[in-house]
C-alpha cells in the first residue's frame, strides 16, 4: 500500500535541545527548544494554536501548546505547569538537556477571519500560553485590527505568566490590557483588578461586534463562554482551545474525543458554535 | 581477577539501623562495600513494591533493617511490617526466587558491629546463590548490564 509520507505517522519524536528556561510562576516554567539544524526548524512550520508533544526521554511524552509566535525563527517555546510525572521531569531539565519533540499538530486560530475586526483575548492562568503567539502576531500587524482587548487573570499575583509580555502588550497603542487576580490573590503592590476572569470580562464590556478568543482551565472556559454569550457575541465568533488527554496527537489513539470530534485532529481550536453541537463531556 | 560482585540493597530505618550503619563507619569497622543503603523512616515504610523494584532493577539480595521489637519510633511499625515480610518471603519462594535473598534484621543504633556482620553475611548468601537471573531474564532490553569490577589484591 503506497503511503502518503506527509500523512504517515510513526509516532517517533525528533531531538531538540533546551536552550533557555524561564521560571514563570512557582509551578510553571517556559522552555525554549532549539532544533538540530535551521532546516529542522524550518520544517517545523506551525501557526498559532497548534500544539506539540515533548518527551522527557525515559519518562514519557506530554502535549503542550506552542506558546511562541511562528516569527521566532531560532526556537520554539512551551510553557509547562508541573502537575504530573512527565511535567515534573520536564521541570528538572536544564539548558543543554535534550528532549523529544513531535508536531506541530492540530488546527489553528482563524487569524485571517479576525482581520479588520475588534478582537478580545481572554486568558486564565497558563491558558494564556496558546493565546500568546496569536497576540504577538495580532500586535505585529496592529493596524489590521480594530480594538484589541486583553483580559488576563490568574489565581494570585505570583501565578501570572508572561509578565514581561504583558508589559510589552500594554505599551502597544490601542491595546486595552486588563489584568486581574482571584479575590484573595492580590498583594500590596497589585494595581490590577480583583475578580474572576469571566466576571472581569463582563465588567469591561467589550464590544460584541468582534471576535473573542478564550483559553484557561476547563471551568473558567465554561464560565467565560457564558459571559461571552451574555455580552452578545455571535457563537461563531467565540473561539477557544480545548485540552483533553492525548497520546498520539494525530487522531489515532482514540482518547481525546468529545463526541465524534477529536481534539487533536479536529481541534484544539473550536468555536463556541461548534462546541454547542458537542456533548458536554470536556 | 575479574569477579562479579553481588548487589545488595538495604532499606534502613532512620531511627536505628541507619544510625547503626553510621556507627560502623565512625568506629571504622570494615565491611563489604557491595551494599547500597536507602534510608526509610521506619521498616514499616518498606512496601513490598520496594523489594520487587530492587530485584527487578538488578539487586541480588535485599536487606531490611528495623528496630528491635519494643523500640519502634512509631510504636508498632516494625511489628506490623514483620507480618508483611514473612508473607513476602513465602511469595518470593513460591515465585521461584530463593527466599534467602530477602533478609530482615533488627539492628539498633548501638549495633554498628552487628550491621557490619549483617552486610558481610548477606553478601555471602548472595554470592553463594549467585546472581539473581530471573528478573534479568525478563528485563529484556532494559536489563542492567553486569558491571564487572576488576579487583586487585583480593
Amino acid at each position, binding site marked *: 500500500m503506497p503511503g502518503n509520507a506527509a500523512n504517515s505517522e510513526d509516532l517517533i*519524536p525528533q531531538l531538540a535541545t533546551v536552550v533557555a528556561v524561564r521560571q514563570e510562576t512557582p509551578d510553571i516554567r517556559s522552555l525554549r527548544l532549539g532544533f538540530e539544524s535551521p532546516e529542522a526548524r524550518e520544517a517545523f512550520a506551525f501557526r498559532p494554536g497548534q500544539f506539540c508533544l515533548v518527551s522527557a526521554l525515559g519518562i514519557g511524552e506530554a502535549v503542550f501548546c506552542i506558546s511562541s509566535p511562528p516569527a521566532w525563527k531560532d526556537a520554539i517555546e512551551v510553557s509547562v505547569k508541573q502537575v504530573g510525572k512527565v511535567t515534573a521531569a520536564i521541570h528538572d531539565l536544564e539548558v543543554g538537556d535534550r528532549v523529544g519533540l513531535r508536531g506541530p499538530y492540530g488546527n489553528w486560530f482563524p487569524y485571517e477571519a479576525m482581520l479588520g475586526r475588534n478582537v478580545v483575548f481572554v486568558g486564565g492562568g497558563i491558558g494564556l500560553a496558546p493565546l500568546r503567539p496569536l497576540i504577538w502576531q495580532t500586535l505585529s500587524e496592529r493596524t489590521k485590527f480594530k480594538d484589541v482587548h486583553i483580559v488576563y487573570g490568574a489565581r494570585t499575583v505570583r501565578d501570572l505568566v508572561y509578565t514581561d509580555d504583558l508589559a510589552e502588550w500594554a505599551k502597544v497603542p490601542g491595546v486595552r490590557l486588563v489584568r486581574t487576580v482571584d479575590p484573595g490573590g492580590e498583594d500590596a503592590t497589585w494595581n490590577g483588578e480583583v475578580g474572576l476572569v469571566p466576571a472581569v470580562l463582563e465588567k469591561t464590556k467589550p464590544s460584541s461586534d468582534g471576535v473573542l478568543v478564550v483559553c484557561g482551565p476547563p471551568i473558567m472556559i465554561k464560565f467565560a463562554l457564558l459571559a461571552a454569550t451574555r455580552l452578545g457575541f455571535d457563537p461563531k465568533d467565540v473561539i477557544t482551545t480545548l485540552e483533553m488527554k492525548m497520546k498520539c496527537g*494525530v487522531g489515532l489513539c482514540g482518547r481525546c474525543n468529545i463526541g465524534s470530534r477529536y481534539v487533536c485532529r479536529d481541534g484544539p481550536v473550536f468555536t463556541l458554535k461548534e462546541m454547542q453541537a458537542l456533548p458536554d*463531556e470536556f | 581477577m575479574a569477579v562479579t560482585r553481588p548487589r545488595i540493597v538495604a532499606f534502613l530505618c532512620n531511627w536505628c539501623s541507619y544510625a547503626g550503619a553510621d556507627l560502623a563507619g565512625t568506629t571504622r569497622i570494615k565491611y563489604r562495600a557491595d551494599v547500597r543503603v536507602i534510608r526509610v523512616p521506619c521498616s514499616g515504610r518498606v512496601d513490598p513494591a520496594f523489594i520487587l523494584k530492587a530485584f527487578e532493577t538488578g539487586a541480588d539480595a535485599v536487606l531490611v533493617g528495623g528496630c528491635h521489637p519494643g523500640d519502634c519510633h512509631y510504636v508498632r511499625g516494625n511489628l506490623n511490617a514483620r507480618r508483611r515480610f514473612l508473607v513476602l518471603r513465602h511469595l518470593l519462594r513460591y515465585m521461584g526466587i530463593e527466599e534467602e535473598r530477602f533478609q530482615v534484621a533488627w539492628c539498633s543504633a548501638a549495633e554498628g558491629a552487628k550491621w557490619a556482620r549483617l552486610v558481610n553475611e548477606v553478601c555471602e548468601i548472595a554470592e553463594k546463590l549467585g546472581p539473581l537471573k530471573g528478573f534479568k531474564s525478563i528485563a529484556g532490553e532494559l536489563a542492567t548490564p553486569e558491571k564487572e569490577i576488576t579487583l586487585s589484591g583480593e
Partner: protein
Amino acid sequence: MTAKRDILRAIEAARAKGYVVFAPTRLEGIPLLAEIEEPLVIDFDHVLTVNTLKDILLPRCERLARLDVEGSGIDPTGDRDAAILVFGSRPCDAAALAILDAILLGEVRDARYERRRAKTIIMTVACSTCDDACFCTSMGYGPHDGTGSDVLLVPAGGGYSVAGVSEKGKAFLSAVGLKEDTGGGDAPPVLSRKVETGDLKAWLDANFDNPVWRDVSENCVSCGTCYYLCPTCHCFDITDETGGARGERLRIWDCCSFSDFTKMAGHQPRRGRHARYRQRVMHKFAYCPDNVGKVACVGDGRCIRHCPYGVDICEVLSKLVSTK
C-alpha cells in the same frame, strides 16, 4: 474442492518462502491465534479464537523506539521484515480489518499498522459452526463473508473451496501453488442471534444524556476484556519504560473503560462507569460512522462470550433503541 492436505501443503510452501505463519492453536484448551512452526498444530474445530488479528497487526505491546536516557538518543525500532501469513482466522475478524483500515489508514496513516498490513496475507477459513454469541449477520457480514480477507476458504464436503479475494491474495495463491476453486461450498451455519439496530445511530445522536446509560452499564465492572478481545477496538497508549540508562518507548493497548483513560491532572471529563461504557458504545455505533462511515462492530460476539458479568451488547442496543 481442495483437500485439507493440499492446503496444509500450501502453508508449508509459504513457510518455505519465508512467511511467518499465524494460525489457531489450543493452549490449555483455549483457542488462540499464535505463531506456529508446524501446520499439524492448527485447530480447525474452534468457533472463534479468543484473540484477534489485532494481536498481529496492532499488537498489545509494541516497541516504537529504544531510548538512550543519558545520551538522549531516540532509535526508532522496526518490525521483523518477514512477510506474515495468517491462516484460519474467521470472516468476522477479517471484516474487522476493513474497519481498522478505514480508521488507521485514513487522513493520517498509522505507519506501523500500514507496513504490517501490507506484508500480511489473511487466509480466512469460513465458519462451519457458530455459537449463541455470534451475530455477524446482524452487522451486515456473514459466516462465509470475504470482506477484509485476501484468500477465503469455505468448507466444502470435507475439503475447502478456495477463492482469492484481493489481488494480493490471488498472487499469494499462485505463489504457493494453490488453485482457485470456488463452488461447492457447504451451506453456512444459521445464527440464532439477531439484533435490530435500525434507528440506532439516530437514537445515539439524540440521547447522550439519557439516564438509560446508567441502567445498561450496571453490570459492567470496567475491566478491559471486551476491549482487548474486540477485533475493532484500537485505542492505544504510549509509555516509556526504563531500566537505568536504557529505556524504550512502547505503544500498548488502552481501554476507554479504565478510569485513567481520560484522566488528566486535576480534570476528569468522563466521570463514572456509565460514561465510560457509553463512550464504548458511542465510539462503535455513532462516532465511527460519523468519521469513517462504518460501524465499528463485526458481530464476532467476543464481548458477549467473555464478559465475566454478562453484559450483552445486543441486549444493550435493543434496550437503548426501545428507550424513549
